[in-house]
Every structure is written in C-alpha cells, then in structure tokens.
C-alpha cells in the first residue's frame, strides 16, 4: 500500500511539473511583456521593475524563480489587479467555490446513489425512467443552457407578491439563498452522471453469484442491497467522483459565470478576458495540483471499497 502511494506520488509530481512547464512556456512565447503599456515609463523605472520581477534574467532562470516561489506557496503578483497578489485573489475566491462545489458534490452523491439504487431495484418503473431521463438531460442540455433556464424560471417568472423573483438571479453575499440556484445547477448535472452509473453498477452486481447465494440463504432484500451489493456497486461511482468533485469545486467555470459568483471559475474567466497572465497561470497550476491530489485520493478510495484491488 505505502509503496503504491509512493509510486503514485512519484507519477503525480512529473504530471504537475509538465503542466506547469508547458503553461509557463506558452505564457512566455506570446509577444509583449507586462510593462508594455501605453503609459510611457522612464527607462530607469522600467529597468527597476524588470529587475524586481526578474524579467531581466534569462528564461530558464525566471522559470526556476517561479518554481521556487511555487514551492513556497507563492503564485506571484497579478498583472491587472494592482496591489493584489494571486494568492490573495485565490484566498477570496476559494471559499466561495469550495462551499458551492462541496455542497453540490455531497448532495449529488447522496441523491444520485439513492436514485440509482431505486432505479436498479425497480427497473422500468417510473423512478427508473426519471433517472434515465435525468441522465439524458445531462447529456444534451449543457450547463450553460440549464443555468439560464433555471434563472428564467426561479428568478424571473416565479415572483413573490412584492415583485421580486423567488430566488436571486446571481451574485453572492454569503447568504444561503444565493447558493440555492448554483448548487442546484451543479447537483442536477452531477446527479445525472452518478445516478446512471450507480444504476448500472448495482444491476450488474445484483446479477452476480454471491448475491444469488445471499438470496438463497433467504436474506431480506434490504440486507442484500446494503450489506452485500452496495460496496462493489459503488466502485464505478468512485471512479467518476474524482472528476466530478474536481470540476465542481475548483473549476465550476460555467456555473460561476452564469450566476456571477466570485469563485475560482469566475476569477479565471475574468483573468482570461483581462489577459491577466500570472493570474490565469497561477489558477491553472493550482487547480492542476488539486486535481492530481484528488485523483490520487480516488485511487486510494478504491482500495477501501474493493478488497480485490491490491497494490
């Protein structure tokens, strides 16, 4: 087990490093520097600025400086937001993304698993069709269409007597009411995936030999499902949980744009449209590292669910 973790870590590091290096090179291949602005700056000031950010050094040296800063947890200064470091921007945005994303992951896991079990046990019943229908919606209606439709229904068409919509159309002030629609959107998308996979996994497990044995022993259905079938059926769910959690927590780019949530996704889109290179690079690096760690955790979770997997 420990040697497996070690081996996985040894692979995770070059992955992260490759992404960082590629992004860094891409950033430096583009013409124009951060201080090429319309405002004329005297040569001395420019030289000082460049020296401060090590821009007068050769590229490999700048890269090593950047890696060194990264190792110390410093993502650098923002190009566009004066006086803001990328770290402080991330520190503001991360809690928003983590709250909304975390809530939606928990909700979609619970609802998805329950719906999946119900659909698998009652194939071709109404609940089965609901799960399959949700799955198809998730496939064909992208989140950036579903989000605006949710706003249209719950914030514009459905009104309180005082003329306001039921729910706010977007924005964020920490109140729970601002979370409902974004969490609902992310949950709706992920419930579809998780529900379908849970359904397929449980149907397959229920037809295996050890379940037949359990039935033959005369165990009640509840015990069969929850004691015996659930754990193996959850393995495929665990395999999608990694990507689902990564995208929900760290990169809910579309959701945060639709609902103008000040999270990481919104930050990266703003950074992209302002051409704030360090901000975008820093966020890509951060999210890649988080993604690599999450994938590692998911692989380890397999071992807990499936004793047949040995490392």
């Amino acid at each position, binding site marked *: 087990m420990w040697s497996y973790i070690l081996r996985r870590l040894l692979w995770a590091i070059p992955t992260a490093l490759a*992404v960082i290096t590629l992004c860094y090179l891409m950033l430096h291949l583009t013409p124009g520097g951060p201080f090429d602005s319309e405002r004329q700056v005297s040569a001395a000031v420019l030289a000082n600025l460049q020296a401060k950010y090590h821009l007068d050094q050769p590229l490999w040296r700048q890269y090593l400086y950047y890696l060194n800063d990264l190792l110390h947890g410093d993502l650098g200064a923002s190009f566009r937001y004066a006086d803001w470091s990328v770290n402080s921007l991330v520190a503001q945005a991360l809690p928003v993304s983590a709250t909304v994303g975390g809530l939606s992951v928990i909700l979609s896991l619970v609802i998805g698993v329950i719906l999946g079990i119900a659909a698998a046990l009652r194939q071709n019943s109404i609940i089965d069709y609901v799960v399959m229908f949700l799955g198809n919606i998730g496939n064909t209606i*992208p989140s*950036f*269409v579903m989000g605006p439709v949710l706003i249209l229904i719950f914030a514009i068409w459905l009104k309180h007597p005082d003329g306001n919509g039921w729910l706010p159309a977007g924005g964020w002030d920490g109140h729970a009411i601002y979370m409902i629609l974004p969490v609902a959107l992310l949950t709706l998308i992920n419930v579809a995936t998780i529900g379908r996979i849970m359904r397929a996994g449980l149907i397959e497990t229920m037809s295996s030999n050890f379940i037949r044995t359990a039935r033959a022993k005369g165990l009640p259905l509840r015990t069969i499902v929850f004691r015996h079938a659930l754990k193996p059926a959850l393995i495929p769910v665990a395999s999608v949980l990694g990507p689902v959690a990564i995208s929900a927590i760290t990169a809910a780019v579309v959701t945060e744009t639709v609902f103008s949530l000040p999270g990481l996704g919104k930050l990266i*889109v703003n950074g*992209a449209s302002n051409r704030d290179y360090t901000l975008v690079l820093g966020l890509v690096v951060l999210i*890649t590292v988080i*993604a690599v760690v999450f994938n590692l955790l998911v692989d380890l979770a397999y071992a807990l669910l499936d004793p047949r997997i040995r490392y």
Partner: protein
Amino acid sequence: MFSKRKQLALAGTVADLPLESVKGRSPWRDAMNRFARNKAAVFSVVLLVLITVACIVGPWLVPHSFDDTDWGAISLPPTWAGTHWFGTDELGRDILVRTLIGGRISLLVGLLGTIASVALGIAWGAVAGFLGGKTDSVMMRIVDMMYAVPYLLIAILMMTLFGREFYLVIITIAVFSWLDTARVVRGQTLTLKSREFVEAAHAIGVPTHRIIFSHIVPNLLGIVAIYTTVTVPGVILTESVLSFLGLGVQEPMTSWGALIGDSVGKMDQQPWMLLFPSLFLCATLSCANYIGDGLRDAFDPKDR
C-alpha cells in the same frame, strides 16, 4: 459420397431456389439494417441533416444579414408579422439569421475539430501500439497525464494567450480531444500488428512508417470512424463553452455558445435570445449523441 440420384436431387433444390434468397449479407449491410431499425437514431439523422441544411442555406434566404443593425426593430419579440421571425437583439440584429450563422460556425468547428482530433489520435495511437515497448509506455503515459489535466482551464489559457482566431479555436479543442481516440486506436493496432499481412509487409522490407500508415491505419478507419461519432458532440460542446465564456470567435461573428452567452443577463427582457440558439444547440447535441449510440450499437456486436 452421394448416390447419383441424391446428387441430382441436391442440384435440383439449389437450382430451384430463387437467386435473391441466397444473396450474402455483408457485415456492413447487417449493421446498416440494425441502424435503420433504431428509430431514435434515424430520426436524429434526419433532424441533423435538416439543421445542417438550414444553417448552410438559410442565411441566404433570410432577408437580413447577420451583422445588420435594424434601428427600427430593437429588442423585437418573435413575430409572424414582419420578417424578424425569431425576434431581434438589443442592436436590432435578426436572431434567426444569427442563429443560423452561429450554427455554421458551431457545426464547422465540430467537423474540423473532430477531423483534427481524430487524425492526431490515430497517428498517436497507431505509432504507440505498433512500436510497442518503451515508446508505447512513454506515449501512453503522456495520454494518462493529459487526462489528469483540467483541460477546460488549459483551453482558456490558450485562448487568452494566442488570441481568438477561428483556427485557433479548432486547434485548442483538438489538442485535448484526441485522447480517447488514441486509446481505442492503440488497442486495435495491438490486435492488428500480429496479423499475417503485417508480417508479409515486414518480410518484403516495407519501412515501419509505411506499414503503420498504409497497412495498419486503413484497417483501423472503420472502427475508428464509428467511435469518433462520439467525439463530435464533445467538440461542439467545448466550442460552445469557450464562446459562451466570451473566448471563442469574435463579434460580430457568432456561434451558438456566443449567442447563449449574450442572452444571459438580458433574459428578463429578451428571453427569445436564449430560447432559439439553445434549441438548436440542444437538438444538435442530442442528435449527435443518438447517432453515435446507434452506430456503436449497430457495429459493435459485443454489446448486442
């Protein structure tokens, strides 16, 4: 050994059979028959063809241009009365013609992006699978690594750095959508490379690159073509997301994603700006999905 009489009788029965009933059925025809029985898939083909034709021909038939601003008809709701059947946006531009023009871009990106990504995937997978050994494990490691990368973010980074030209959108999408194809192709190549015709090619001294590209790849195309119908909706979706975020093609040119992005925030006044592009996009995506599923079911005997 048959007796003479029996032989005659046999010959008689064979000759008596009408010719049509002993006609062989190729696997291809078999698969097409199975596909034709799949109603959802056939309906999707018809609808997708209609949408495509509408997007290609439509803009010439509508009496407006996609970047014409009609100051007499600003934020007009959909109406049968005038010529703005889908309504107009806040600059007085006709939504119908913009939806169709946007469809041209979205479908074209879907087509070109898929071709690029499939070409890359075939080349990568075939080389990795055929050469095997260290080369194979390094190349597939790179694929594994790229799976771990949050690719939408890299796409955003690339669009930020390199600009928003049409061909850059396609390259950006292709760079990250070839991974599945590469895996399928590698698997197929592994089974192909021990076949006799490859051995024969080796024996007469055909160079490796020619074995890969003129003996292996043509044999892969059938199965790959089917699996990559699944790539099309993914590519269209990625383009739409980028355009939705304002990082795709630039104004006044548009695409379905860009139109949907425009409509957000104006939904209380102009919900039709959201409605029509969304309908076209969702219809196209679901058609592409059903066709992909239908083809896979029809051609993959394992899953039947």
